């Protein structure tokens, strides 16, 4: 298996390089193509691997498409007629297909009548490196880089010569460097001690894997040199992993800040204990899902539109809760707590009955998947990077609203001294509604962001309500800056602890830490000062 797999891309390269690719007429090749595909329709994976090899070396111009469709699991065979088709869409019961030989439309077929040409991970690897070799010849630099990266660690004897020539003719330095590394890994596997020098200092995980296996080499010289090179790499990695933990912490912190910042307004500023806060987050997440349902095929646009929509939906729900429940329970925190807890259960069950108890799929747009590579040992996941940025923007906007607008001024006036504020002509009830709507709307924004990180389901809110209260109390009730600092620092503390003590214990330790901290400083990190604090 291994032998075959490594042999194939090499052969392909030879074909391409020496211009052996014969140009074949499609109509003449109908039978040949059918025969090539026929060989795939066997159950043994080794036989399939050989069949893939013969497709690659056949030089048929359709082979690339076949390999891609095989990799995607879309190449299928009609059970009765033995006709090969490519499935265009494989959800539901009837699938639209095209003919695999002529690529012409072949109508719809029932999944009952189709046999999928199954592949496993080994074949997937074979197909991927075969396609990567083809990609080395494309004009797009990014594709070439990806292909070269894909080939790291899977270069074999047959590929060495063609790859060397490619290195000579390649313009892009990055591709050249990757190809040379790939060749060096191959030489190292053969026991060449000089190859280690070329790999020194690389943070790539496949290079590290190769060096690690070399430390177990029979040749003590190679083993020692590999260990020395690894030591150097480990050093560099340590700095990386420190930075990585910091990023993880900030990212977790930004989620906490987002979830808590709405609560910092309703609980912190207004003093309302709103147990339904989590469900307001959930509504925001469902709004994102709803938007994506309305705009199929445009997840990015839907996500952007969900930001204002999520705010509005949760704000309206917030107003309903304030008008329907909270206004009647002013000054009675225990009743408010119980009543809003009831509201939270009602909202959860409502979503369960109206939409579904099952989680909903929220698709991440292309530009939010994957990661941003800082260096080969450190890359930042894009979705979390966006959420981190989003949290900071939301925080900044909220600060602006509270400090620079009339609403903010009125809110601060009403919360500091309600009677005096009313005497000055501020309509306190209206301010209450607006403040609660603002806090709820921000919870909706948190929901939009969380839909990119976690499950969108009826329980989404429950997972964040405790954390949110924790952050607000730790940061100091009534202080937005406190919430920001508390959220980010709790995130970092949690992530620093996690590798040491495990996720379960890390949570407990953080909780105990907060309890002790509150004992010492009951008003949190940034207590409110002055007369407002007395109330």
């Amino acid at each position, binding site marked *: 298996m291994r032998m075959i797999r490594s042999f194939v891309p090499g052969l392909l390269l030879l074909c391409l390089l020496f211009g052996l690719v014969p140009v074949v007429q499609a109509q003449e090749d109908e039978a040949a193509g059918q025969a090539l595909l026929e060989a795939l329709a066997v159950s043994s994976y080794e036989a399939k691997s050989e069949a893939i090899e013969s497709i690659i070396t056949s030089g048929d111009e359709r082979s690339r498409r076949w390999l891609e469709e095989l990799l995607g*699991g879309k190449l299928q065979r009609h059970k009765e007629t033995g006709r090969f088709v490519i499935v265009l869409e494989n959800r539901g019961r009837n699938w639209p297909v095209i003919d695999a030989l002529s690529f012409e439309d072949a109508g719809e077929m029932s999944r009952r009548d189709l046999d999928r040409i199954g592949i496993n*991970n080994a074949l997937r690897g074979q197909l991927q490196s075969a396609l990567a070799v083809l990609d080395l010849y494309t004009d797009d630099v990014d594709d070439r880089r990806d292909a070269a990266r894909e080939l790291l660690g899977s270069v074999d004897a047959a590929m060495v010569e063609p790859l060397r020539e490619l290195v000579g003719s390649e313009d892009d330095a990055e591709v050249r460097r990757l190809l040379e590394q790939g060749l060096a890994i191959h030489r190292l596997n053969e026991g060449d001690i000089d190859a280690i020098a070329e790999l020194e200092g690389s943070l790539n995980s496949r290079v590290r894997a190769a060096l690690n296996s070399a430390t177990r080499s029979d040749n003590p010289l190679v083993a020692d040199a590999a260990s020395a090179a690894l030591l150097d790499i480990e050093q560099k990695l340590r700095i990386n992993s420190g930075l990585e933990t910091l990023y993880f912490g900030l990212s977790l912190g930004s989620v906490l800040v987002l979830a808590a910042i709405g609560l910092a307004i309703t609980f912190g500023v207004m003093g309302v204990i709103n147990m339904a806060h989590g469900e307001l987050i959930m509504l925001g997440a469902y709004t994102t899902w709803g938007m994506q349902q309305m705009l199929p095929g445009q997840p990015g646009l839907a996500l952007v539109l969900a930001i204002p929509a999520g705010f509005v939906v949760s704000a309206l729900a917030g107003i309903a809760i304030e008008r329907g429940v909270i206004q009647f329970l002013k000054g009675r925190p225990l009743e408010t707590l119980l009543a809003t807890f009831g509201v939270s259960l009602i909202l959860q069950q409502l979503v369960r009955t109206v939409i579904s108890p099952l989680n909903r799929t929220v698709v991440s747009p292309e530009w939010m998947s994957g990661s941003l590579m800082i260096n080969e040992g450190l890359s930042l996941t894009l979705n979390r990077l966006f959420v981190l940025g989003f949290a900071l923007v939301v925080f900044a906007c909220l600060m602006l609203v509270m400090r620079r607008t009339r609403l903010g001024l009125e809110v601060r006036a009403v919360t500091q001294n309600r009677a005096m504020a009313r005497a000055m002509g501020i309509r306190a009830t209206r301010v209450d509604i607006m403040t609660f709507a603002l806090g709820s709307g921000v919870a909706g924004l948190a929901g939009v962001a969380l839909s990119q990180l976690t499950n969108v389901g009826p329980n989404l809110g429950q997972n964040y309500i405790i954390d949110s209260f924790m952050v607000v109390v730790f940061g100091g009730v009534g202080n937005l800056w406190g919430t920001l600092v508390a959220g980010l620092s709790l995130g970092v503390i949690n992530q620093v602890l996690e590798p040491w003590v495990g996720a379960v214990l890390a949570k407990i330790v953080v909780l105990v830490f907060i309890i002790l901290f509150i004992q010492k400083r009951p008003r949190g990190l940034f207590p409110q000062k002055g007369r407002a604090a007395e109330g």
Partner: protein
Amino acid sequence: MIPTIPALSYRWLAASLLSLGVAAPALAQEDDPIKVGILHSLSGTMAISESTLKDTVEMLIEQQNEKGGLLGRQLEAVVVDPASDWPLFAEKARELLSQEEVDVIFGNWTSVSRKSVLPVVEELNGLLFYPVQYEGEESSENVFYTGAAPNQQAIPAVNYLMNNVGVERWVLAGTDYVYPRTTNKILEAYLRDEFGVAEEDIMVNYTPFGHSDWQNIVSEIKQFGSEGKKTAVVSTINGDANVPFYRELGNQGINAADIPVVAFSVGEQELSGIDTAPLVGHLAAWNYFMSVDTDANYDFIDAWIEHTGDEMSVTNDPMEAHYIGFNMWAEAVRKAGTTEVDEVKDAIIGVSVPNLSGGYAAMMPNHHITKPVLIGEIQDNGQFSIVWETPSTVAGDAWSDYLEGSRDLISDWRKPLECGNFNVVEGSCGGGQAEAAEAETD
């Protein structure tokens, strides 16, 4: 302020209800419907998994009634909602058995809810069909385990990774509760004793329920996997927590070719909540996949789609377990000629019914069933493609052969042994399950 008249009417209502309850047994006639209890959470955290099982049993009952019912009587579903609250499971089970007087119960998902129901069904001599894969180490006279025991899921999956993928380093990642902890204990012992895997080549990691921040753990796994030996993750991560876990895997660029993840709790339903394109090639071990290519399965799927009215609804392994369990029970009732618990219990051992993957499932004397083990790779449409299966079906083993203490136990509910935990070395029976479980937790 206390309104007196309503209070009076409450009392009146209670009295009339009570009299009804007393009168009910006397009314039970031959042509009364056979009552089938359904004990699945319809609200709370587990509703996501359990509510579809309730629908499955309802569908099976409907189908049976269309075929003329059982013993000439119609079947009737009695649905209760234990609301994902473990003690409530026991209360609801009691309600089903003593008030509704159901003839059989289909229910439970989590092991802790089953443990809570166990003493009740044993005390009131009920019948419970439990459809989910679990950690084993249990065999009750009144419970039939139609899901997989560890030797029908975890052990074959590890064998596959070892022999077909060549894995040398293992990450055992799980949610922190009884099923993952027991399963991982079994797997650790199995890897060490059977394959001689060294201590440093096994990494064990537990996370809380609903864990959503996987950055650190995924990064650790990545680190662990760059030691030059083929690494795989064996995941007993439960339910929802899988979605952010897989997302993080995809985003940190761990693909199945480098570090495959084999999961025991991820089925079609869990995948219907994620975009599976970055997960293609990761594995799951089950006894049934929706993609199984048999006519029985396609008919089942068609019936399910018709029942739910949703063209995109999926089927999964616990649904098949209920399908098998329901048919086994119906067959046993037919065989015994009555729904009487003791007779059905004896009649069901040895009953064999078709499963959905083209074979047969038989009820073994230890109340576990025979199942094929399938390994599937995740596809971009949220389905699995089967890459490996056991040559024949595997009989469920209640007591693991790899754990100290359970190695010598066997379970056989036939006469004359009639014991769920018979120690073959000491030659004695350990007694009731509920007490044994209690002793273990103490």
